């Protein structure tokens, strides 16, 4: 009898307690920027494709769900011909982001990737590419690397001296 009354009281008391249920999906939970969700490919501050198709993300991936093929434009700038992530295999470990030397591949705080068909979880480059630099707004690999590409000649990268004139007789 006494326990019955106590239960009633408890229920009555909870009517006025602060609510913790989040009304998902109408209401979104906060996920920090470093949350490891859906993977994107970003662009450098100049708007160019950041990925240089070095294959490091693919080799770092413990489930081998990234595959790509490198190619070059006519000026020697390397980029992926195709870039595919099979999210049905992805474990969102973030190793690809850690391995990426250009900050191209980044994990985002978006985890809403449910699909009825597994095939729809295969993302190609067009599905992965975003229009901004993501979490790293300033870095541009090509400004640092010592290879010449369109718009940046030898000796024009950061901390580089002008090319050696091999015909010079000066010591």
């Amino acid at each position: 009898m006494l326990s019955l009354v106590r239960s009633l009281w408890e229920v009555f008391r909870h009517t006025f307690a602060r609510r913790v249920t989040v009304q998902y999906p109408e209401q979104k939970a906060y996920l920090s920027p470093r949350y490891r969700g859906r993977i994107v490919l970003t662009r450098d501050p100049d708007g160019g494709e950041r990925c240089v198709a070095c294959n490091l993300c693919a080799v770092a991936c413990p489930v081998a769900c990234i595959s790509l093929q490198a190619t070059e434009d006519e000026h020697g700038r390397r980029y992926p011909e195709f870039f595919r992530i099979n999210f049905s295999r992805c474990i969102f470990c973030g190793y690809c982001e850690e391995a990426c030397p250009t900050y191209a591949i980044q994990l985002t705080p978006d985890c809403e990737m449910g699909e009825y068909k597994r095939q729809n979880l295969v993302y190609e480059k067009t599905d992965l590419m975003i229009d901004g630099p993501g979490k790293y707004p300033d870095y541009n690999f090509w400004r640092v690397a010592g290879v010449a590409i369109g718009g940046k000649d030898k000796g024009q990268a950061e901390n580089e001296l002008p090319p050696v004139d091999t015909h010079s007789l000066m010591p």
Partner: protein
Amino acid sequence: MTVATIFIDNAPREVNPKQNLLHVCLSLGYDLPYFCWHPALGSVGACRQCAVKQFRNEQDATGKIVMACMTPAAEGTRISIADPEVVAFRAGVIQGLMQNHPHDCPVCDEGGECHLQDMTVMTGHRQRVYSFGKRTFRNQYLGPLVNHEMNRCIQCQRCVRFYREYAGGHDLNAFHLRDSIFYGRHEDGVLESEFSGNLVEICPTGVFTDATLKHHYSRKWDLQMAPSICVHCGLGCNITAGERYGTLRRVVNRYNHEVNGYFLCDRGRFGYEFVESSLRIRHPLVDGKPATRSEALERFGAVLRKGAVIGVGSPRASLESNFALRALAGPDHFFAGVPDEESRLISAMVRILRDGPARSPSLDEVEHSDAVFVLGEDLTNVAPIMALRLRQSVRQAPMRLAAGLHIPEWLDHAVRETVQDAKGPLFIASPYATKLDDIATATYHASPDDLARLGFAIAHAIDATAPEVIALSPELETMAAKIAAALRGAQHPLVVAGASCRNRGVIEAAGQIAWALCKVGSPASLSFTMPECNSFGLALMEAPPLSEALRTVRSEPVSTLIVLENDLFRRAPANEVTSLLRGVQHLIVLDHLGNPTTDAAELVLPAGTFAESDGTLVNNEGRAQRFFQVLNPSTDVQESWRWLHEVSVAAGSKSMERWEDLDDLTATIAKEIAAFGALPKVAPPRSAVGKIAREPSRYSGRTAMLANISVHEPRPPQDPDSSLAFSMESGPGPVPSSLIPFFWAPGWNSVQAVNKFQSEIGGALRGGDPGVRLIEPSRESVWQYFSAIPPAFKSRSGEWLLIPVFHIFGSEELSRHAQGISQLLPRPYLALNPAEASLVGAKAGGRIKILIEDSQFELEIMLRADLPRGVAGLPAGLPPFDGIQLPLFCKLASVGTEFSARGVL
């Protein structure tokens, strides 16, 4: 071998005292970083990377830092590799070398198989602390095969040492000075050396990279690889071929101490692109239209039931495929598919090697010969790696000078200073000047018959019981005596000849010299080059030549001709081939590239190239070597022998039911043909070894590469023929040397991981070098000297003897279709001596009319003063002349004039 005991970090180790400390440390399995040293190039002590600490004795605690590559491994030497001071020294050296390195590993083709990366990781250097600017360079265009990215250079000098000193090239050098030394050409242009591709492997970083790989780049860790054999000449160099996403991506050297050692020629390295050529046949063709596999097999079966079959094999198909066709057609109806003259020459070479006392040397033995006579061969263009080996052989005799001064062989710079320009005896007698002439003691350019006469004269000068050459000029007499004396005085004399001159006398003369040497007690070797990758193997099958096929077609009712991986229009004049094809109702061709023969076929079956099939090839030494499938084609392509097996089983033939896979097949061949008794021993059978992964343990993208087709991953393809698996999974236990799919060891990602697979650095692979010799010289002295000495060549008025001039790019059938190499092919030309060109009114760069048999052609003229009088040269194997069987006499006329009945003028 004498053994010395040295102490490495206080542990006593037994080592080879003739070697340096770096060599012995690496042989013992220690990880000691190095750059400028290379086992084939020796030590120069330039990079200061292999520092170790040497102690005077057990009590010495201070020690001194020495370069391991420059210090002999003398008895009692005490060194430390792990001493903190020396570890810091090595890290400091790397730090210096990395100071200007351009921060471009992600876009560098060397990344992932870079010796500089490996060594940097090994020494622990992580962060560039030097804050001033980086030195930069402009790159050069070096041709379609090698890419140049000079910023990455660490100035180790290996490229120039290999290119100039080892390979004899001239157009690559070091320019400028200090920290801005530039390695390249004096101006942009295609690298001239036939061995330029080795720069890709010699360079410890990414300055020189494979330009053909760049078009379809893949990291080493992403390549599915398998041991293979080069198919672009008869030497059988061992290669590792790599596949990614279903296409062949590249070829690198696979070390085999006895055969190719550390190097490949450019034809072998870059010729692989023919596999992805646009001429590739990937699906069956019935009456010229694409057909399904079952339609093709049905048609094949129907044709087989109609009547008698003859088969034409091929010197570029594996032993297994040739045997399968022989089994299908019957041994009496199987023909070799080589021109009569070539077939006779190759049989003569095999007979000379088998019946006589002279042994065919491995390429390693070729390198260690101390007197060489090359008769009638342009080795740089016919058997390039043999030419590279001969370049080292001329160092053998002068090396004794250095040995006399107690300078060890590996101390490269000191040896070269001692030797200066001294070269051991190398005599070249060839129809035209070759690239090896620059290191020859003496050369002789004459027509094939005259070359043979010189050969016979040398044999007579060595052993007087050998037949004498009558009416020899006094100069030739002197030359023959000089060559004979050099060969007799050598410890390891070598005679090299081959079928390039298409002259039986040349081959017999070479045999005669080697036999004469053997008779006077000299351990002479005799090396014949072979025109194609399996010419030797096909010759051991003893099948009759092509003309016999024509005779059979004419004399017997034959309904079907099956041609195996062979373009008959390259083997005989078009009219003969046409009459052969007209003599049969059905023509069935198995091949991988489209050619005139496949165009004429009723049924074409897509055959696998070396990359898509397993098989065995026999090289010019008589060494049988196995190649393994690299990629599993998604198309109908499969081994020719498997096609033939399937169709004969489907047609109800009992003869081939016994074998299902490669091991069954090799066992059957061994049983049926005595010469191939050792064939099953070439590589261990599938049952004897556990699984061996074709893919490195870091192979990426397994669950994504096919996800665009279906997200459900297919089962990895199974390989019924070998222990090699199309997966990353390996069984336990060591990999037999003939099945090593790629060289990799922890911490050693570059090709130099081969260090970890050798019993001694630069020596045999652990477990023995792959390949089994199928022939040995006869022990009985039943041989007799040849007595048919050809008369001296007399030039005919108004007629020229047309001989083949070989080109590394162009003369070989398959590599011609490789994308990179196709840009380097010569244009068809006629080579003529300038003294004779004026006779027909021809000028350099002009054009000339040529009458070969009944066909007329117009050709560009190339003047070559080295061509003998009465002889004209035509590039070998180049269309439209690839069917013409040289040598033959031709007539010439200037453009605009007509040929008279008697010839020109």
